[in-house]
């Protein structure tokens, strides 16, 4: 077995934070090697050192038997090591071909040889099976296509060893399958793939060997054959973990109505207008819902974005008390705009939002929150937390008017509130004065959730990507909190790009595609294989199209 990458005794420190201590990795040429670990386990840091982005503080790196410790990205690329990052780094106004040749543009005389560039890219697409039209503008591509372009970009620079950092985070199930096919083909052609992921089923499906990291350290390596998600998770966390996916076996028994749940797909009326499952016009009562009248109802809501006037397109649904309604879908299909419109962060073009029967469409964020709308936002770094604020101060964000007397903030109440929440939600470090920036992803999210679940009396909770970038242990905790809120009679609208999460938590599942709810199903009838085609637009309630 020839070794493509060998890292041993790697240590890397950033300021106060030890990202890697005694990390090691051995990847054989021609394998797909998965690197798994909780968030903050140091996977990305190790990979970036292999790709030449940082130099290790201690330890050695070898590529193809050569000591390359502390090399530069330029040297890494020259040696055929390329990294596909979690976040896309493409110029949206340029075409696919232009993005790929950027920095080494072919020329015809003084001019840019566009035809030559496109031909070269087309040839690469053919060879790898990564299908993208090189003449299209990157801004017009779907997320799945963008991912392909990122991989093409690395391959175009001659990479033989490909490092992919969480490549499936933004893909729908069929796109993931497609990606696996491409990676297997690359390996068949003599390439080597290192895959960073935290989705354990993916690891089992595609990799040959697995390296597990915990707290900056490599804690083990195992052959994939014989490993199970549970055994890998145990290595990652160092203890037994209940996985979200385990709930597949047990139907959501919390709601006895589930049994008579029938499939409700979007129906098309004669004049082509869409009629959504779960709207008031639906004569049949919603199966598998909570009890009582709707806590949240969205009626014919249209919301604009900077890209298009109908990012959310005439959407209707209801969420009842004691129910989790999960919206699945590939990101960028209007989920963000939908949630922002419900929360009051973005105006509705038309339609209405009702909270417990009261029309709140024109209300401000604070009015809605005070009326009982809690919101775990999609991006805690951008919206959910002021990162420079202390935990205590972040625990009153959106509640600050309840912690003031006259003009002044009541600091001892803020402190008591912080101590209480930190204990309830086991936030670590348990110091109210620590800035939120210094916390791990899971603890940051605990701060947000503590505030939104305990900070105010609420009837409706918007939970968007509640466990994104959160370690396995905290995922378990957060899911328990959401279930407990549901069982306490709260209406929860869950939006997640993670289908496993949606299926694990929801009583009803809908899929958003192109700004519409294209299908709504009771949990018992939903599964990845049923929802997948809806998520890609392969099924859109009759009009087959997509891309």
């Amino acid at each position, binding site marked *: 077995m020839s070794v493509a990458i060998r890292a041993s005794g790697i240590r890397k420190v950033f*300021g*106060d934070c030890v990202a890697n201590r005694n990390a090691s990795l051995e990847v054989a040429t021609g394998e797909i090697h998965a690197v798994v670990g909780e968030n903050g386990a140091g996977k990305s840091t190790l990979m970036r050192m292999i790709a030449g982005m940082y130099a290790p503080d201690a330890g050695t790196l070898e590529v193809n038997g050569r000591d390359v410790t502390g090399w530069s990205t330029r040297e890494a690329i020259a040696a055929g090591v390329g990294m596909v990052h979690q976040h896309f780094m493409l110029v949206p106004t340029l075409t696919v071909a232009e993005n790929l040749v950027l920095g080494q543009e072919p020329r015809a005389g003084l001019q840019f040889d566009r035809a030559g560039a496109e031909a070269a890219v087309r040839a690469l697409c053919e060879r790898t099976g990564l299908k993208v039209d090189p003449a299209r503008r990157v801004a017009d591509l779907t997320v799945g296509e963008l991912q392909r372009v990122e991989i093409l970009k690395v391959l175009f620079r001659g990479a033989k060893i490909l490092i992919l950092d969480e490549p499936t985070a933004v893909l729908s199930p069929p796109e993931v399958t497609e990606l696996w096919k491409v990676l297997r083909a690359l390996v068949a052609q003599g390439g080597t793939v290192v895959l960073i992921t935290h989705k354990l089923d993916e690891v089992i499906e595609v990799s040959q060997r697995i390296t597990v990291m915990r707290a900056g350290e490599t804690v083990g390596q195992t052959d994939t054959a014989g490993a199970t998600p549970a055994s890998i998770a145990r290595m990652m966390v160092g203890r037994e973990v209940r996985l979200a996916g385990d709930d597949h076996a047990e139907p959501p028994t919390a709601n006895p109505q589930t049994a008579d749940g029938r499939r409700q797909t979007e129906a098309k009326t004669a004049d082509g207008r869409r009629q959504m499952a779960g709207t008031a016009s639906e004569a049949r009562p919603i199966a598998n819902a909570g009890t009582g009248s709707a806590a949240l109802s969205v009626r014919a809501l249209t919301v604009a974005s900077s890209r298009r006037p109908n990012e959310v397109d005439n959407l209707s649904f209801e969420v009842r008390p004691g129910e989790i309604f999960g919206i699945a879908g590939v990101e960028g299909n209007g989920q963000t705009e939908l949630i922002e419109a419900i929360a009051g962060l973005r105006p509705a073009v038309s339609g209405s939002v009702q909270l417990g029967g009261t029309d709140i469409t024109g209300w401000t964020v604070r009015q809605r929150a005070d009326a009982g709308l809690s919101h775990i936002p999609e991006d805690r770094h*951008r*919206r959910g937390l002021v990162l420079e*604020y*202390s935990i205590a101060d972040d625990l009153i*964000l959106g509640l*600050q008017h309840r912690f003031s007397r006259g003009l002044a*903030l009541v600091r001892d109440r803020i*402190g008591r509130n912080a101590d209480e929440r930190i204990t309830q939600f086991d936030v670590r470090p348990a110091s109210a004065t620590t800035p939120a920036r210094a916390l791990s992803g899971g603890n940051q999210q605990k701060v947000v959730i503590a505030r939104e679940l305990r900070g105010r009396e609420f009837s409706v909770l918007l939970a968007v990507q509640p466990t994104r970038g959160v370690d396995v242990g905290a995922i378990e905790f957060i899911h328990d909190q959401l279930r407990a809120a549901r069982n306490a009679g709260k209406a929860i609208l869950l939006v997640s790009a993670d289908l496993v999460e949606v299926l694990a938590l929801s009583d009803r599942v809908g899929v958003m595609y192109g700004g519409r709810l294209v299908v709504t199903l009771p949990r018992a009838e939903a599964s990845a294989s049923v929802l997948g085609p809806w998520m890609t637009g392969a099924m859109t309630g009759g009009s087959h199209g997509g891309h």
Partner: protein
Amino acid sequence: MAATEATVPPRDPWYQRLMEPLLPPLTALLIAAVVGDLLILSFGQSPREVFRLLVEGTWANAYGFGQVLYKATTLACTGLAVALGIRAGMFNIGAEGQLALGGFAAAMVGLGLPAGTPAALAVLLCLLAAGAGGSLAAAVPGALKARFGASEVIVTIMMNFIVAALLNWLVATKVSVAESLHTPEIHAGAVPRLAEVIPAFHGSAANFTILVAIALAIAVWWYLFRTRAGYELRAVGLQPDAAEYGGIDVGRTWWRTLLLSGALAGLGGVNYVLGYKQYYEEGFAAGAGYLGIAVALVGRNHPGGVLVASLLFATLSQGALAVNALVPKQMVDVLTAVVIIAVATAVPEVQRMLRAVRGRLA
């Protein structure tokens, strides 16, 4: 930030807590001093001699020190104005115009008051007018920013020119004393000179407006770190998206902050108009508004830091006159620029190094 000030984690001893905010600006000053030495040497003079003159002309005698205090008073006001804006994520470059309009408004009210108005009341009304005048100059950029998202940087700069031209016209055509560029003298009231209490300050322009500036610094500190409005203001400055999520009206916060910022700068006008000359004169602001940006920067946008930085820049400004015999006084302008550049570049670098050292110790 507020909380770290309120409840200090017990593990850090006091000198470590002070190191974080103090070491970076002190390093910057050291760099500036070295560059200053080299400049002085290039003029063929002894740095020791020049710095001796600089100290003698400022802190070492009562008159010089009084002048430093006088200049620092104005700079503290404009520095606080800029710092408050930056805390809300805005770069108020309009302190120059706000200061000028504040001074003019104070003069107009002072001139307009009927004879027999109690002096204390007159001063109070002039202070209110100065604040209102500054707010007025800031209201235009504030409204445009809050309503249309117009860049406050551009609009405040433009307002400086508009205010200057407007006041120029008003003074030249309506209210000036013949053959001069200033208004008639105000008799309604004056802010007493410090010399009336401490005779040593005799001859210097230092006056009790300095107490106003100190009070303003305390008020700004309280507002920023102890009130709900300050909590919201800082959230808007750090992360407008998070502020919006927290139910804070970002546009209104910007608007309110620019008005307050303008008022702070405008109040600085009283220092000249009621504390020194008893009239408004064309061009009295003389760059104090722009220098307020440097004061805020060096003072790390903290009211206490602003007070210290205003003393520093006032010292340099007054010292320039004292060293004129040996080196051109413009050299001090260069030194001021070096301080600003050193602070802007050295501070983040030193902070990074401090953090790295701590990381290694941990």
